């Protein structure tokens, strides 16, 4: 089997796309030939650092060109570069070190104090060029020979029900199959030019980079929608696709930005959505106002990437809440007691930090509940896992509780999901304790908890409602929080 990155560059050279822009950001852009050269230089750089196949490095460079260069270079050598969020706090750092034993970390912020391993801080694209300049060389074909399809080549983090982030091991086989499935369904070509505002340290964002590059297309990387100005600026160029979550779409179609958003989306040919089903009213709004826009939605966890796809533009309203049908013939599905099980060559090969893969006889037990209708469309009805889905970011209620318990004065706590009109769900905390203030909780949270996991509502109470067996009564907790 071919190494994916070799496949990307071989395709570019064969199809004479070397001068085409491979990646663009607000400040920089890079052609495929320059990308190939910098990837080759970075391969040499990593080798000189004595890194070898199966070594683990952390890649915390955010949605930048340098993140992709380091990722592709690692991929070519067989180094496992785990993409992690660019905002690393002390808690994350300990978790990464204890679980993955990385030998090197790339970051765009001051993180040396958090790690006792070598850290390379790259604040911008030019700095990466500088560190590799003395070993700059022209990219050569066939850096690697054929690869073993079952070798682990990538590890992506996702939040599991246990409260700990799970490190999902992906092989050459699983990644290549997932890309074949997706590019086949969407019919990617070198004409695809995608705006990617979602984080590329997750399967959703990174998958879009792979799929676009493997066909010789271009990606425009954005750091979320923190800056609306930068977001709309991306539409000045002739990009024809975008990857977004429903919560971002909902925000962008609010009163003030609605018109500008619809005008911008109208310039696109397609949009790919993941994480939660799009609100029916927004689906209708997009269909009415963006006549040329094809809206794809897919379902699939990091462990079983993009297993189901639906083209909402072709479907009637009764299927707006469906996640569609299997992406390709390789994807198998079965339901056992309403729980969705997925099989196929695109499946992951277990977790790096857990022995239980939940793969049973070749099928991954997803923890999601659903049903198939008579036409074979899959509908998701709920989750078995205690996870809060904050606009696509999976937050473990248990993990947030355990982290907040470290605050002096907290005697008991219950973290639950409450409704949010934009993100669908958000974390809220009911807290019992002494000498506490909301400010104290927020100060601690800002330093120790990922942004999306920080409780957006905090209520102090005399007790946490529990059953006779000590189990938290979630509905009672919700009532108290909502009445506050």
């Amino acid at each position, binding site marked *: 089997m071919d190494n994916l990155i070799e496949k990307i560059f071989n395709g570019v050279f064969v199809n004479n796309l070397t001068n085409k822009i491979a990646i663009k950001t607000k400040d920089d852009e890079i052609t495929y030939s320059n990308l190939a050269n910098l990837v080759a230089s970075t391969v040499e750089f990593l080798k000189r650092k004595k890194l070898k196949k199966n070594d683990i490095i952390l890649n915390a460079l955010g949605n930048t060109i340098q993140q992709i260069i380091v990722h592709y270079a690692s991929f070519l050598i067989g180094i496992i570069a785990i993409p992690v969020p660019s905002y690393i706090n002390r808690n994350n750092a300990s978790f990464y070190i204890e679980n993955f034993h990385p030998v090197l970390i790339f970051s765009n912020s001051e993180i040396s104090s958090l790690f006792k391993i070598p850290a390379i801080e790259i604040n911008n694209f030019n700095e990466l060029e500088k560190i590799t300049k003395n070993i700059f060389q022209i990219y050569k074909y066939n850096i690697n020979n054929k690869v073993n399809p079952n070798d682990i080549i990538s590890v992506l983090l996702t939040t599991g029900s246990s409260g700990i982030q799970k490190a999902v091991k992906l092989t050459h086989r699983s990644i290549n199959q997932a890309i074949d499935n997706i590019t086949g369904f969407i019919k990617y070509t070198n004409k695809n030019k995608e705006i990617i505002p979602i984080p590329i340290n997750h399967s959703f964002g990174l998958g879009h980079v792979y799929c676009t590059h493997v066909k010789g297309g271009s990606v425009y990387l954005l750091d979320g929608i*923190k800056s*609306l100005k930068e977001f709309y600026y991306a539409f000045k160029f002739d990009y024809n696709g975008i990857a977004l979550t429903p919560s971002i779409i909902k925000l962008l179609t*609010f009163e*003030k930005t609605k018109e500008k958003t619809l005008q911008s989306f109208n310039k696109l040919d397609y949009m790919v959505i993941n994480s939660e089903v799009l609100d029916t009213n927004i689906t209708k709004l997009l269909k009415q106002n963006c006549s040329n826009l094809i809206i794809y939605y897919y379902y699939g966890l990091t462990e079983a990437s993009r297993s189901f796809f639906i083209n909402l533009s072709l479907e009637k309203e009764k299927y707006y809440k469906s996640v569609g049908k299997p992406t390709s013939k390789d994807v198998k599905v079965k339901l056992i007691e309403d729980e969705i099980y997925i099989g196929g060559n695109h499946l992951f090969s277990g977790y790096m930090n857990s022995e239980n893969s939940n793969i049973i006889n070749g099928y991954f037990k997803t923890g999601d509940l659903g049903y198939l209708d008579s036409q074979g469309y899959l509908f998701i009805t709920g989750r078995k896992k205690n996870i809060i889905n904050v606009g696509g970011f999976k937050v473990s209620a248990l993990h947030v509780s355990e982290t907040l318990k470290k605050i002096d004065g907290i005697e008991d706590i219950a973290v639950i999901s409450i409704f*949010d009109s*934009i993100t669908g769900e958000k974390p809220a905390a009911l807290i019992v304790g002494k000498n506490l203030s909301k400010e104290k909780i*927020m100060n601690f949270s*800002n330093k120790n908890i990922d*942004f999306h996991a920080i409780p957006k509502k905090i209520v102090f109470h005399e007790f946490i409602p529990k059953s006779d067996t000590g189990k938290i009564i979630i509905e009672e907790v919700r009532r108290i929080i909502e009445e506050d």
Partner: protein
Amino acid sequence: MKDKIRKTIAKFLSVDEKKIKDETGPADLAEWDSLAHQGLILELEKVFKLKLEIDDVLEMESLEDIVEIIENKIKI
């Protein structure tokens, strides 16, 4: 004017005023996320009795920006 705007933002986001520095903007604080930013724009319109256009909204990336835009609107 700057203090009044700072107070409005702090009150709307339920954060200490000291946290709102001149360069602070959306996503610098957990409380000031993209959703809160949308709500804040409507709140600023209400408090200062003015209408913010989409171009104003796009330029509002820090307290300093917000002050400049609102001051210009009020002058007009």
